[in-house]
């Protein structure tokens, strides 16, 4: 027993932090560091490199948020979370914001008492098959063996889709994406189903990507976005409008390269308001005037972040599709900065 207490007291003396209040913003500022929950590793969205530096689409959002709040995009502590621990980590205050390709669903938003601050990637579940199977539509998959990650929404979507189309399938349960790739590659299942972005990344990693196709049917809506706890609307506003600022920056042509130039003042009042040369939008959420400028300068606007991490020039090679600006036929549509 003595040994336990020895360590307990060490924790008490050395590692105990203060008590959190409702104001997450104050906590983050006092700590000087943003705690951001991410995946334990997902290609393009969040993964550490050889030097332990995190990079990815979700990571860049966290860095932008840190830049807006703390003035420095490197002041982020990335907390790897699993599918089981992610919501508890957020609810208990272990992380301030969760950016872990989490699907925005009704029950997560309401029952789990979380607030989704927006959508940073519109995904959907698809199927990948080997070309030699001769299948061109998911409706032809009757009787197929399907590799499916257990305990995810994709499992339920799959059951719904086959039931709705009066088809049968044989599930091959897998635990992780890597295992799914391995099983599918070894021919243990006819088709592998997961989010389309994940399928694209998986296909790109094969030795023979030309032999595999992603079927055109998308059988579910998977709006992925960052989320925060219920109960601190100011912090939710900051997280929401940081994301909106990144999206709006692309719409108005503000990039990491020209942001400083534009911040000297332009003819477009909305750009001026975003970059803090006009109005006092920052003060309304408890930040200074340049918060959005710093967020944009960190890794660029939404389009730049997309292109750098998961866009067509990367090995994953995702097209913008639904994630294009509303002016380009996509779904990205931010409310006005006014």
């Amino acid at each position: 027993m003595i040994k336990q207490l020895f360590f307990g007291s060490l924790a008490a003396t050395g590692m105990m932090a203060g008590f959190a209040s409702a104001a997450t913003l104050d906590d983050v500022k006092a700590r000087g560091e943003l705690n951001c929950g991410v995946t334990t590793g997902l290609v393009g969205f969040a993964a550490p490199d050889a030097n332990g530096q995190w990079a990815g689409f979700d990571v860049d959002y966290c860095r932008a948020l840190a830049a807006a709040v703390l003035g420095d995009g490197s002041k982020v502590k990335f907390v790897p979370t699993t599918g089981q621990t992610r919501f508890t980590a957020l609810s208990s205050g272990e992380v301030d914001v969760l950016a872990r390709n989490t699907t925005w669903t009704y029950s997560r938003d309401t029952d789990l008492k979380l607030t989704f601050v927006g959508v940073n990637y519109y995904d959907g579940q698809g199927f990948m098959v080997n070309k030699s199977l001769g299948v061109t539509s998911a409706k032809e998959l009757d009787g197929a063996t399907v590799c499916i990650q257990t305990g995810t929404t994709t499992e339920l979507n799959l059951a719904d889709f086959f039931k709705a189309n009066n088809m049968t399938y044989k599930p091959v349960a897998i635990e992780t994406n890597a295992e799914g790739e391995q099983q599918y590659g070894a021919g243990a299942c006819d088709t592998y189903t997961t989010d389309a972005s994940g399928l694209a990344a998986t296909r790109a990693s094969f030795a023979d990507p030309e032999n595999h196709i992603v079927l055109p049917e998308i059988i579910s809506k998977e709006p992925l976005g960052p989320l925060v706890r219920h109960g601190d609307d100011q912090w939710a506003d900051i997280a929401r409008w940081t994301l909106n600022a990144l999206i709006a920056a692309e719409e108005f042509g503000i990039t990491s390269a020209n942001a400083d130039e534009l911040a000297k003042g332009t003819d477009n009042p909305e750009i001026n308001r975003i970059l803090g040369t006009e109005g006092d939008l920052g003060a309304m959420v408890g930040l200074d005037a340049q918060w959005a400028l710093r967020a944009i300068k960190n890794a660029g606007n939404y389009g730049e972040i997309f292109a750098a991490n998961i866009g067509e020039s990367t090995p994953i090679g995702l097209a913008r599709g639904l994630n294009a600006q509303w002016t380009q036929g996509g779904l990205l549509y931010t409310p006005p900065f006014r």
Partner: protein
Amino acid sequence: MSGTKANSASFVRDTMLSEQDPPITERGVVKWARENLFSGPLNTFLTIIGAVAIYIILKGLAPWLLHSVWNANSAAECREIIAAAYGEGAHGACWGVVRERWAQFLYGFYPSEHYWRVNLTFILLFVALAPILFANLPRKMLWFSVIYPAVALLLLWGGSVWVPVAALAGFALGWLAYRFALPVTGSLAATVAAVLVPIIWWLFFAGWFAGLAHGILPLGMEQVPSSKFGGFLLSLTIGVTGIAFSLPLGVVLALGRQSDMFLVKTLSVGFIEFIRGVPLITLLFTASLLLNYFLPPGTNFDIILRVIIMVTLFSAAYIAEVVRGGLAALPRGQYEAADALGLDYWKAQQLIIMPQALKISIPGIVSSFIGLFKDTTLVIFVGLLDPLKGITDAIRGSFEWKGIYWEPFLFPALIFFLICFGMSRYSMYLENKLKRDHR
């Protein structure tokens, strides 16, 4: 030979026949194979089945291993090199992932300029362990073993020197309390004082003392937060701490279970049966998730520490049962002999009972330790990056190494094997050395 029979009766041989080789079926490889592989229809059948199985495994594995690539910076580059060297469609192992990311397997995200601290801690671990493992080393080395946990804590996490000093001071105070209370109040009260004084010190004064001392003499190292720990650094930290603390705790629990005192016995039995009744993963989830709700909001109770505590408690319950088996195996006469010599309870345990009981339990205890060490990979479920899955997934999460499957499993598997096999061999050495009967 016939020539040697001159001048002798034809029916008497007067010279020895020279030795002949045994028949071919009774010597060498053939004999061995006949006896061991083809001694009967069933064994012949099993041998053939076994040979076919080995052939099939090797046929799949050998080309893969023979086509190994070391110098590559991505999975795609590996495939190109293999295709260029062995033709299109050839498979091969891509060890480039180990070459590029070995540091992450070993240290996690520990800052590379501080690797020496981890290395030093690892080397000192053996210095601290040596006098415990090998009895013929000078006993004075044990003093280093005693302060080693504090040294390791300082080296790995950094921070002020005074935090581990304050923690160690608690033990010194406990010893002093026992020493001075013993002649005045008797054994029981002294034991209680030896437990209470350090607890009071740690809870109320240690932090204050560390802060004060640091104010006067700020000594320390750069802090490394727990979030930077990963890979084998994490596994060994949890494993070694768990092993070191679960053995004494397990012995105490085993004695508690044997005790005649109702309360002690009930608590021990309840603890052991409860812990053994739930899976480790449940305890880990409790540590990582439930505790967050019980503790005041915002309390940042270090996650590695929480996991270490749970792993230690879990292992202690199993050790307690193993030691209880050893205690049960001792003949009643040993206890009575101790009583007859007039030894008190603790002296009897220390001099007569425990040395024998622990000797009997060595294989079981080491099995528990090996199990504990391998169980440390379960911490991935609470978001810590263990070497087998956490680090592996993180590595596969990068563009370069996506699609690599077996290689990042095999490298940690090899290291796990070396460590566990080492523990197992040491246990055999110890059993051999302590063997007192059937010499």
